[in-house]
């Protein structure tokens, strides 16, 4: 379980994250969606959890199950982002971040090499690790990128770039996957396909996902739990049906006045 404890982050006068306490992965493989109006502090929260930003206050904690059924908690607030990946904490960005000059396969391979801790290896070629290649094959199949695996990333259509971005994240064998608008910029008819692929991959691996999403239909269809942020604070937390039943929430979120 990944826990945010009283996280606070200020940018000058603006309190982007204000005393946020949340738990993710209370049940294994949970799908949490974070929603909220622009400027609600959704991305800042992910940045705090993954270490791109340091909180002014509060802490980030992972709870690990030990063999005998108890859990131990470990604070990772001061751990570097690259080391949080080893803790199973993986993220994507709102803008696609892939290695543009590498092929699709090479992109996924770098991530998988990192996961198997083989990056410092200089005695062999990068494509000669059977274990790594097998994992890469699995991922390419799962994300339906086999046909374009030898194409250079920058030449891919936008939807495939988004999928590649997520496939790389899965290549790191995440326990918690934090996705910042995985469907942004994707054509409406492809959004469902992208989310569906992510859901399949997460369920197959028991990954807890925390996804920022603006499309409420997608949220309703796929969320196990909903977190609503408004002005840096947790406004609502609970079942996605809140989106239909909670009038105040609808007003804040959708501007619906009935």
């Amino acid at each position: 379980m990944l826990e945010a404890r009283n996280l606070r982050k200020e940018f000058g006068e603006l309190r982007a994250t204000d005393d946020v306490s949340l738990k993710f992965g209370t049940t294994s493989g949970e799908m949490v969606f974070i929603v909220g109006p622009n400027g609600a502090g959704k991305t800042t929260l992910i940045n705090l959890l993954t270490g791109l930003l340091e909180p002014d206050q509060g802490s980030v904690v992972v709870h690990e199950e030990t063999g005998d059924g108890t859990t131990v908690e470990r604070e990772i607030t001061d751990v570097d982002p690259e080391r949080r990946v080893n803790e199973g904490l993986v993220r994507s960005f709102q803008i696609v971040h892939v290695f543009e000059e590498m092929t699709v396969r090479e992109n996924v391979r770098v991530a998988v090499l990192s996961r198997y801790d083989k990056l410092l290896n200089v005695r062999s070629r990068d494509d000669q690790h059977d274990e790594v290649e097998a994992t890469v094959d699995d991922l390419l199949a799962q994300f339906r990128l086999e046909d374009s695996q030898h194409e250079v990333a920058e030449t891919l259509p936008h939807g495939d770039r988004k999928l590649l971005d997520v496939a790389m994240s899965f290549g790191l064998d995440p326990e918690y996957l934090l996705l910042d608008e995985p469907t942004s910029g994707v054509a409406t008819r492809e959004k469902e396909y992208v989310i569906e692929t992510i859901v399949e991959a997460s369920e197959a691996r028991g990954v807890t996902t925390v996804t920022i999403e603006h499309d409420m239909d997608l949220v309703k269809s796929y969320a196990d739990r909903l977190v609503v942020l408004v002005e840096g604070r947790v406004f609502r937390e609970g079942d996605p049906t809140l989106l239909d039943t909670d009038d105040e929430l609808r007003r804040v979120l959708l501007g619906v006045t009935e």
Partner: protein
Amino acid sequence: MSRLSPLEQREGETVVRVPLTRGLTLTIGQTVLALVGVLVLLGLPFLAGLVGLSWGRLFRGLLFGLAAVGLNLLLRHTELVSFGHAAFFGGGAYAVAVLAAHLEVSEGLLLLLAAVIVGTLLAAFIGYFVAGYVDIYFALLTLAFNAVIFATVFRSGFFNYNDGLAVRVGGDNPTLFGLGWTDLGYDLVLYYTTIVLMLVMLLLMWRLIHSPFGRALDAIGQDRTRARFIGIPVERYVWYSFTISGLYGAFAGGVYALQRLHVQPEPTLYVFVSGEILFMAILGGFTTLVGPLIGGVLLVYLLEATRFTFNYYHAPIGIILLAIVFFMPNGIMGSLPDILAGLRRRLSDPGRLGEDLRSIQSMVRRSLTRATTTVRILVFGVK
């Protein structure tokens, strides 16, 4: 090359596997080029004279080129532009000179080892401070370190100021493999020892850039943020690659000192030399492994050959650089495939030559029109 295994088919292309270098696959064309390259290197002391070139200059060109190969690890893979690599070349050269002049160490290989150690440590030291920076900050910081080292050496009696130090113990050449040699023997033994080591270093660099580590460096160069978030310790890896790239410069500088037998600050440590090493990589083609080596040979030869023929010898070199950047941004080796393909097309279809001519004509016409318009505006104030 008797250990070549049978040809293998891969993705419709004929590939030769060389077991000596596990994982090294070359097409037939590349194998031939590599063999020719090695033969030329081995025959250089004899071939150079035949075609009227100076072997010593070519040798020095290879050394600077090797430094550029090292620099290229940063330039091509982590995409960082270092303006301070002369520090390691000069550092290596001065390690040799100081040990010979002040401590009377006379064995050349020992001196060379010292050069590699000193230059690499220097790179590790500087790299530690610059690894967290990118772009212009990285370039300026490396430049600043280089300038500080140059100024220190230039102004210090220990390094004998601008006159530099002789790499001689008691007036004799250093020994090589524990033996004293005639002048010619010394040059030949040094050359062939260097070539063997240089080939090994090129192979190692080839292995490095195709290894998972090399791929991690590519990742850092292409998207630093993402690299961090797939778990690459970016700054540590940049530091490693900076140090390795300095090692190549240090080795090259050490051999340079042994070849010249005299080390001065300006040809080895000056910041302009750093710029030249960078230029070599771009001239030869920084997208290739051996491009910088070829760039090094060409540039050093051009610089040394024009130095005494006319005063403004840097000007034509600058013009060549401009031409490369405009017309061949991938450098000589990097543009070779395109040039060859273009030539082949024109051989099979001479009609294209007419097109080329027409496009040149229209280019000239356009520039002339632009020039006259500009003049008209400047002189008459109207179009």
